[in-house]
């Protein structure tokens, strides 16, 4: 059809025509007429204009149903008028062409005629285009789905290729015309297809959606603010409320700074009476000081990183972190679950706590840190968590594994910690501070000194009390004008000096001079006092399992009888009694050191059988000792080698002790005096690794004297 149009426009452009052209035109019109629904003028009645097409379509579309034919006929009837006009047009055209041929006209006439024909042909063509498209569509529509189905079965790739080309445009069209139904059609599969895509390429979906998320949230906040607030509150609520409290405090303090003279006067009076606002400003003018920073594992309370400022008293960070963690988890469990403790305040000190993920930061500060500092701690912790969260999460107690970056970040917090309040404060405020300073600085300094002094006095008293020989005397340490003065009475110069040496250390640490005002009253010792003290010490020593002694005192001489199972205890017994005034000589009357502790009974690998031949002498020696000292009991303790499992060694140890015990009982020793303490195993790792295995398998004896045998 396109070709026909092309020829026609050629014709109209070239006015010069020859007979060949004329032939072409004639052919063309005939083709048009033949294809068209025009009746054969001789045989067919013009009342059935479409029968030609219907007939020719039928063999191909033999599944056409009868009612669709009816429908089609009704539709075509409506168009019959315009078809009639087309028929007329076509007939005229044919006649004209035939006329030209028969008269054999000259070329000029021919051209004229053709020129007259052109509008006719164009009209005819247009009609054919309009009419036949409608007709074809009308005919094909009812069977299109089946056509497509069959065709798809035959050659689906081709079909797909064919449809693919128009699919985007088709969908676009449909969305424009009927957006709702498209949405309904696709909706159920969207979730599934996203899930599939995530499986295929986990990053793609976040990458695609990410940039839009911000916009989406923003839009959602605009349209449904309350719902968004509700959704987000559990996450950021506490952070915001914390922040708000600080903002309000900040505003308050700003308001306080811009006061009228009257207001300041009133405030001043309030402060003179000791109200806290004064302290606030005072502290602000004093600044704050960071003492230590700890990054702590939230669950275990172990320290991940610590910074202690040199010059401050060193803190036992591990215990502190442990207790802090316990307090935090207690508070979380029992007081406010879900929220976190964020400040511990004690005296001049504060512990700021910031929690994040698997760890928390504890900053110990003196004074009142400004808000900017608190903000900074949050930022630093944020950075640490962002960069090192993996290392923190996997922390296993080994400080060597902690990334260096954490320390450098924490150190930022110690840098500018001597903040002064901004210099932009109004002059009035400075005046106020000056006046307050006149009042409070001396007061503050003296109260600070008093507190320090009190602390030193307490520490001294505790130290004195901790020395057993001094604990019975009342000694009174006081701090005054650079001196540590100690008063009291003790029976002799030895104890006086002893007290001094104990206090020396404390005095040096605090740069104080010692003023020893203890009086050594050389009381003529009352025998009662001496025997009382001797009895006290005797009982004290007898509480130890290696000691069973009796003491008797004649003026100046003390006799000690009994058993002391090890050498060092024997020495300390001597020293302790020597210090009792009134004792000048001590006579030891102790049985010889027990050599039992050195006896070891060795065993064969994997066996608990006691080899009597080898161990006869040892067993006998033990037996004799036990018979000599009826109060002595023995604990049997086994060691094992590294061969075999825990369980095997555990059993072996138990059985080895049992066979030693049996051997001794068979020799007349009461079973009750032998305690098999082999029901846990001695970890072989603790033994000297260079030793031979057989040297690791033994049972040894630990003598002791039960309290009811003393």
């Amino acid at each position: 059809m396109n070709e026909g149009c092309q020829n026609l426009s050629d014709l109209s452009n070239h006015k010069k025509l020859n007979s060949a052209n004329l032939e072409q035109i004639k052919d063309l019109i005939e083709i048009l007429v033949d294809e068209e629904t025009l009746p054969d003028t001789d045989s067919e009645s013009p009342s059935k204009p479409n029968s030609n097409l219907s007939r020719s379509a039928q063999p191909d579309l033999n599944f056409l149903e009868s009612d669709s034919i009816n429908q089609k006929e009704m539709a075509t009837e409506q168009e019959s008028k315009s078809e009639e006009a087309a028929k007329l047009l076509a007939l005229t055209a044919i006649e004209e062409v035939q006329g030209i041929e028969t008269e054999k006209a000259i070329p000029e006439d021919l051209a004229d005629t053709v020129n007259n024909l052109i509008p006719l042909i164009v009209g005819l063509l247009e009609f054919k285009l309009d009419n036949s498209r409608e007709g074809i569509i009308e005919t094909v529509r009812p069977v299109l789905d089946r056509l497509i189905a069959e065709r798809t079965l035959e050659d689906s790739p081709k079909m797909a290729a064919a449809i693919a080309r128009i699919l985007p445009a088709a969908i676009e069209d449909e969305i424009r015309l009927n957006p709702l139904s498209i949405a309904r059609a696709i909706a159920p599969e969207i979730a599934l297809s996203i899930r599939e895509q995530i499986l295929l390429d986990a990053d793609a979906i976040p990458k695609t959606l990410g940039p839009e998320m911000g916009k989406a949230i923003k839009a959602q906040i605009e349209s449904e603010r309350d719902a968004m607030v509700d959704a987000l509150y559990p996450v950021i609520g506490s952070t915001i409320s914390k922040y708000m409290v600080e903002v309000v405090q900040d505003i308050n303090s700003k308001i306080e700074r811009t006061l009228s003279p009257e207001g300041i006067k009133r405030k001043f009076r309030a402060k003179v009476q000791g109200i806290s606002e004064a302290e606030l400003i005072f502290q602000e003018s004093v600044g704050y000081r960071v003492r230590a920073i700890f990054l702590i594992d939230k669950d275990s309370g172990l320290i991940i990183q610590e910074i202690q400022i040199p010059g401050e008293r060193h803190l036992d960070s591990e215990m502190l972190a442990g207790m802090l963690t316990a307090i935090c988890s207690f508070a979380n469990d029992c007081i406010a679950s879900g929220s976190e403790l964020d400040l511990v305040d004690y005296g001049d000190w504060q512990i700021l706590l910031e929690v994040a993920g698997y760890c928390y930061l504890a900053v110990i500060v003196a004074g009142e840190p400004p808000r900017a500092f608190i903000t900074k701690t949050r930022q630093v912790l944020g950075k640490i968590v962002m960069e090192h969260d993996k290392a923190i999460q996997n922390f296993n107690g080994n400080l060597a594994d902690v990334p260096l970056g954490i320390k450098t970040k924490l150190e930022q917090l110690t840098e500018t910690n001597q903040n002064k309040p901004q210099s932009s404060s109004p002059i009035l405020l400075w005046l106020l501070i000056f006046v307050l300073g006149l009042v409070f600085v001396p007061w503050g300094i003296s109260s600070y000194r008093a507190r320090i002094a009190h602390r030193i006095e307490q520490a001294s008293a505790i130290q004195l009390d901790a020395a057993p020989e001094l604990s019975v005397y009342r000694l009174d340490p006081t701090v005054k004008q650079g001196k540590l003065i100690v008063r009291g009475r003790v029976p002799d110069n030895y104890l006086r000096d002893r007290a001094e040496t104990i206090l020396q250390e404390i005095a040096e640490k605090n740069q104080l001079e010692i003023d020893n005002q203890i009086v050594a009253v050389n009381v003529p010792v009352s025998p009662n006092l001496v025997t009382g003290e001797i009895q006290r010490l005797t009982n004290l020593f007898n509480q130890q399992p290696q000691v069973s002694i009796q003491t008797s005192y004649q003026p100046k001489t003390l006799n000690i009888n009994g058993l002391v199972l090890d050498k060092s205890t024997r020495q300390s017994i001597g020293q302790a009694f020597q210090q009792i005034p009134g004792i000048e000589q001590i006579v030891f009357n102790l049985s010889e050191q027990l050599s039992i502790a050195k006896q070891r009974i060795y065993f064969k690998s994997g066996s608990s059988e006691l080899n009597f031949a080898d161990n006869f002498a040892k067993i006998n020696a033990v037996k004799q000792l036990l018979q000599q000292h009826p109060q002595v009991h023995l604990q049997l303790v086994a060691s094992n080698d590294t061969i075999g499992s825990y369980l095997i060694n555990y059993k072996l140890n138990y059985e080895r002790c049992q066979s030693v015990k049996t051997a001794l009982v068979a020799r007349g020793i009461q079973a009750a005096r032998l305690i098999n303490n082999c029901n846990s195993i001695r970890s072989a790792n603790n033994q000297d690794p260079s030793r031979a295995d057989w040297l690791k398998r033994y049972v040894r004896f630990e003598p002791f004297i039960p309290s009811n045998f003393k």
Partner: protein
Amino acid sequence: MSTITQKICLLGDFSVGKTSLVRRFIEDKFSDRYLSTVGVKVSRKLVEVKTEIETHQINLLIWDLEGNTKFKSIAPSYLKGASSSIIVGDLSRSDTLSNLTQHLRLFWEINPQGQVAVALNKADLIPPEKLAKLVENYQLDNFPRVIGVYTTSAKTGDRIEQMFEDIATVLIPARKP
């Protein structure tokens, strides 16, 4: 020489002697007075363990927890992050011994990889001839990750050092390849 820090918890019924065990281990002291622990008491001791290859320092942070009573159970959050625990029973009170497995379970619920030592305490109160029999009933070796069962006495100091040493030994980190 390497140093690592590890958290270790003591748990068991009230008055079985948890605090006394820790006190004996750290200060080598004992008192007959009973002062019930409230909440937690954290203490610390550095333990050295020699192996064939090197000496390890293990810094034990010992959490002595409040014992549970009929009315109050142990707060699980105190157990978090502990690499090991000592479960304590009182040999003179059989109910505290039958509760041992319950404590074991609680601990493992929170620290599935945790190591456990079982201390059957107050061994000094039990006549030696009865001790072995009594102890036999509470062999918990069929549990994995039980380091051992120890008949301890905070009063005499028996087996305590040993127990802590064994725990420290199993806490030595595996050598990295």
